[in-house]
């Protein structure tokens, strides 16, 4: 009576973004030592201070131990087996226009449905495409420049805006912060830099699509976004990776800084390769993302839709220093197959009247394991600070799991923290009801799941909300049965 076979086929239909682009690359052999770092720095023609920064981080990293794996089951990572630099060869110093970009690369992005060519670009979206380690094309830069917005690769920023980079790089996530952030500080290859000057509302959504391509290359992206007083910027990061047998390491660092009255909205849609149904292959995603509400009345909002990676370990956080500053975290995390996700947020309330909102939606299907881990800390000076946390889990099938670990520390008696948590299951009753009304089982599942995620999707920019919904549907195809 059931469509079991078709569903099975769908499950095995595999990962749509799984193809490898054949371009010659300039890849460093695996291994990590001070020479590796000098090589990277030299390749990028970096100033001395940047090299020093990297070496300091590397030396510190040598003293660190890998973290304990939270709720995750993980094979040990051999850091000497990873190549720390890979750049598409023909690109050289980076193309000046799209005509100079390797057509294979453009084809890759086309397959992913990414609008690299300006005429195809979603109206109002500027794309900074990162292919493996080097930024290959940047669109809309001129228009942004007119508004005074700086949007470029971090390597360019090191050359062209050293004073800004020196001032802000590592100021939110210092290299001493954690094992992966430290490694990133030592070997980061490229990433995105955004600076929105005082009083400027960035005229378009900024977006970077990351793509991990070269086998055995780790990706160590570095993103730095600064919104000066009264500025506003919305940024979207989207990621896909081709299919690989080896687990690939991704250890990015994202730093956001919002000064007085500034607002940064950072959205992520992540569908890196999760590994096959037995858990072979797939991306290890260990990311440090942190936003600093440095000025009064500043506002940082994280929205993430996580459907990919074999292992996800990320806690986009907010440091609420300025009085009346606001931190938000909206998250949908999906695990299926053998995927494991340990994600959540940390809200550090330091300033007075600071407010934070956390909405976390975890969906587990098949053997997926989903853990929410959230920390809310109210410091001694956080008068009248408020947090509201809502943490919902949805289970599809009975072999998956959801776990919630809220940590709350309150050091100011006027501060208030609220936590709500629910767990529900898509029931056979619900599916039958929908099917009786003419919906196919998978459409019923995606409708229920979309309903479950609505509050988070509402936070995404329109076009990306549509994208996220589609992605979720693809991810959950055949999850029931």
């Amino acid at each position: 009576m059931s469509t079991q076979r078709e569903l099975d086929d769908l499950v095995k239909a595999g990962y749509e973004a799984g193809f490898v682009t054949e371009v010659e690359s300039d890849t460093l052999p695996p291994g990590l030592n001070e020479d590796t770092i000098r090589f990277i720095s030299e390749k990028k023609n970096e100033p001395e201070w940047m090299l020093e920064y990297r070496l300091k981080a590397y030396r510190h990293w040598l003293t660190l131990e890998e973290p304990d794996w939270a709720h995750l089951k993980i094979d040990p990572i051999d850091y000497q087996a990873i190549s720390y630099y890979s750049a598409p060869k023909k690109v050289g110093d980076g193309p000046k226009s799209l005509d100079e970009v390797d057509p294979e690369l453009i084809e890759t992005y086309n397959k992913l449905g990414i609008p690299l060519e300006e005429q195809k670009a979603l109206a109002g979206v500027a794309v900074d495409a990162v292919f493996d380690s080097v930024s290959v094309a940047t669109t809309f830069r001129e228009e942004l420049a007119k508004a005074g917005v700086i949007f470029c690769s971090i390597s360019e920023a090191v050359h062209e805006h050293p004073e800004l980079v020196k001032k802000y790089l590592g100021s939110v996530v210092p290299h001493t912060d954690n094992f992966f952030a430290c490694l990133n500080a030592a070997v980061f290859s490229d990433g995105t830099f955004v600076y929105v000057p005082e009083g400027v509302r960035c005229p378009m959504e900024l977006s970077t699509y990351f793509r991990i391509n070269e086998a055995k290359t780790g990706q160590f992206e570095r993103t730095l976004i600064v919104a000066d007083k009264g500025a506003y910027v919305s940024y979207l990061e989207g990621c896909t990776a081709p299919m690989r047998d080896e687990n690939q390491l991704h250890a990015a660092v994202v730093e956001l800084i919002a000064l007085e009255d500034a607002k940064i909205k950072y959205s992520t849609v992540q569908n890196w390769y999760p590994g096959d149904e037995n858990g072979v292959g797939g991306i290890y995603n260990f990311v440090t993302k942190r936003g600093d509400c440095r000025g009064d009345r500043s506002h940082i909002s994280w929205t993430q839709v996580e459907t990919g990676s074999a292992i996800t370990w990320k806690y986009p956080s907010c440091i609420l220093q300025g009085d009346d500053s606001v931190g938000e975290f909206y998250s949908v995390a999906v695990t299926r197959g053998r995927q494991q996700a340990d994600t959540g947020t940390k809200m550090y309330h330091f300033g007075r009247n600071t407010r934070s909102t956390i909405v976390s939606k975890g969906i587990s299907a098949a053997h997926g394991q989903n853990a929410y881990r959230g920390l809310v800390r109210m410091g001694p000076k956080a008068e009248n600070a408020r947090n509201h946390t809502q943490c919902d889990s949805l289970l599809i099938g009975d072999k998956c799991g959801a776990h919630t670990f809220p940590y709350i520390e309150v050091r100011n008696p006027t501060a208030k923290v609220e936590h709500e948590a629910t767990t529900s299951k898509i029931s056979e009753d619900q599916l039958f009801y929908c099917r009786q009304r003419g919906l196919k089982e998978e459409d019923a599942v995606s409708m229920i799941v979309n309903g479950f995620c609505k509050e988070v999707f509402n936070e995404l920019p329109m076009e990306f909300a549509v994208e996220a919904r589609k992605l979720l549907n693809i991810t959950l195809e055949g999850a029931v049965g």
Partner: protein
Amino acid sequence: MLSIKNLHVNVEGKEILRGLNLEIGKGEVHAIMGPNGSGKSTLSYVLAGRDGYEVTEGEVLFEGRNLLEMEPEERAWAGIFLAMQYPVELPGVNNMTFLREALNAVRKGRGEEELDAVAFMKLIREKAEVVKLPEKLLKRSVNAGFSGGEKKRNEILQMALLEPKLGILDETDSGLDIDALRIVAEGVNSLRNPERSFLVITHYQRLLDYIEPDHVHVLAHGQIIRSGDKHLALELEEKGYGWILEEAAA
């Protein structure tokens, strides 16, 4: 239009329907009454194709097609609609979205064009008027936190929207207040036409005062043990089931 022959159904290894026969013609309204646990809901679920109901013998033809081989959604496309005794809640799923998805799924299944948002809005307002469903219920999650009566009205709204060929109403009258009962019954009556048939499961004659059946059947111990016209329902109301059960046993 619907022909059930010698239907035997097991649930969890226990035989619930034991050789049920029923013929429903085009445009006819059939009422099924019977004691609690006699298998009325089971029959409705089997017709709708719910998992877990094992047909061990017999056949069901719907407009000449073997219904038992079809998936639940295919049956919906073919024109079977089941208003459930206990409508299911779908938290988070907006009722309006659900209605549109369902309508378009059914239309697609029937080889018709999907309705655009504007046409749908117009249609749904019209249909909601028929069952007097307050518009605010369209904006809430499907059945979530609806009162018993509101759920039943929502079922009839869905039926009005999906325009089935056979509407099966499983105790749609239970839990309705007097006014709601009339509204729901009028809603059903407005859907009656020479092409559309109904199978109305109920415990009370009251509903049948409004929705006048062409035939009344008594289901007991997994079989139809007596059939008659609308007067049978009146007789049952007066005397209960005891006498029929005794006669059947004799």
